[in-house]
């Protein structure tokens, strides 16, 4: 996978610091795909263990974060393929009190997100939370740029329909 455009950070952090810095993001990314808090927590552990084991194969042609996201993605989809659980929801996740958007609409958005497929949730996470460009998402998810554009549009359209 060519992920040259994803090299945001060139610094190379040791594993404990890497864990401290990116574990929450890995958790959120895993949660967006797995839609299960416990599974996402396990994913974080697995991803960092996999990272530690595959450090020698890390060519540093992308940032450590991107490398972690690639490992996370592979792990999560692999997990989805080989497990019986699907779409448990994210209600267990605690909400920040400073959250400004209306509580009711917030719940409905959560409910709407639950109705999406793991791939659609992943796209929403990568675009809305991580703020990646279409090109970066395309490279990370191994899709064409046009595909990403269309899929994001369809996800939004579907979300809008659910929320209506």
């Amino acid at each position, binding site marked *: 996978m060519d992920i040259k455009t994803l090299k945001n950070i060139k610094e190379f952090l*040791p*594993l*404990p610091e890497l*864990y*401290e810095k990116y*574990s*929450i993001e890995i*958790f*959120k990314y895993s*949660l*967006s795909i797995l839609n299960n*808090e416990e599974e996402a*927590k396990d994913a*974080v*552990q697995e991803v*960092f*263990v996999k990272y*530690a084991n595959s450090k020698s194969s890390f060519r540093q042609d992308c940032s450590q974060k991107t490398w972690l996201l690639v490992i996370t993605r592979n792990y999560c989809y692999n997990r989805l393929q080989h497990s019986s659980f699907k779409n448990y929801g*994210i209600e267990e*996740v*605690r*909400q*920040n009190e*400073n*959250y*400004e*958007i209306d509580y009711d*609409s*917030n719940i409905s*958005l*959560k409910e709407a*997100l639950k109705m999406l497929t793991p791939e659609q949730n992943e796209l*929403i*996470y990568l*675009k*809305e*939370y991580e703020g990646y*460009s*279409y090109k970066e998402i395309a490279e990370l998810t191994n899709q064409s740029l046009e595909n990403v*554009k*269309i899929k*994001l*549009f369809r996800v*939004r*359209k579907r*979300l*809008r329909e659910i*929320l209506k």
Partner: protein
Amino acid sequence: MQDYELKLSQFIDNELPIDEQQEFFYFLSQNEEARNTLAEYIEMKQGAKALYTSLEVQLDDPNFTNLYAGKPEKNNKKYKFMFYISAAASIIFAFLFLFNEFSPDPILKKYQNLQSEMIELKENYNAELNKQTELSKINNQLYEETDKLKRAEVKKNKSDNKISNVLLPKKSNQQKKNNFDSINDYLANVPTFVVTKDDFLGQQIIGN
């Protein structure tokens, strides 16, 4: 504009090409429904972002972090204790070895003695071999010296117009006899002369 929702999606992601933006803005200004859809999309975008931002989770797993941070774990105490014990044992063994305090196995000792004897014999053999080499070198030198002397003598004899006995190859008795016989046969065919062995061997006849 048929696919305005796709363009809306691109627009809120800041991915709408610049050359399409003007036309899109004009379309937005003319279409209230599109503006409402845009507002909904923006709200969804912000809502999704806020949802993920607001997620809080306790992930701190001391076992995992300690494993890679290299901090000492509780189990490490056991390994430390074992390390100190093994270090002390190795020091004691080193002392025992240095002062020969322990008695080795008799077979091992015999083996070691034999080994040292073998080494000694090997050394002796090598010394003898060296001596022999030296002797053969000396022999060669002697031979070369003798040869030089012989050659010098021959040279001297040649310069005095003398045929040295040294140069004459020694003939066996049979050869000598054959020579005499052949010469006698030859002389027998010469009618005018009666030649004896003594005359043939003389300097004068050879010269004639």
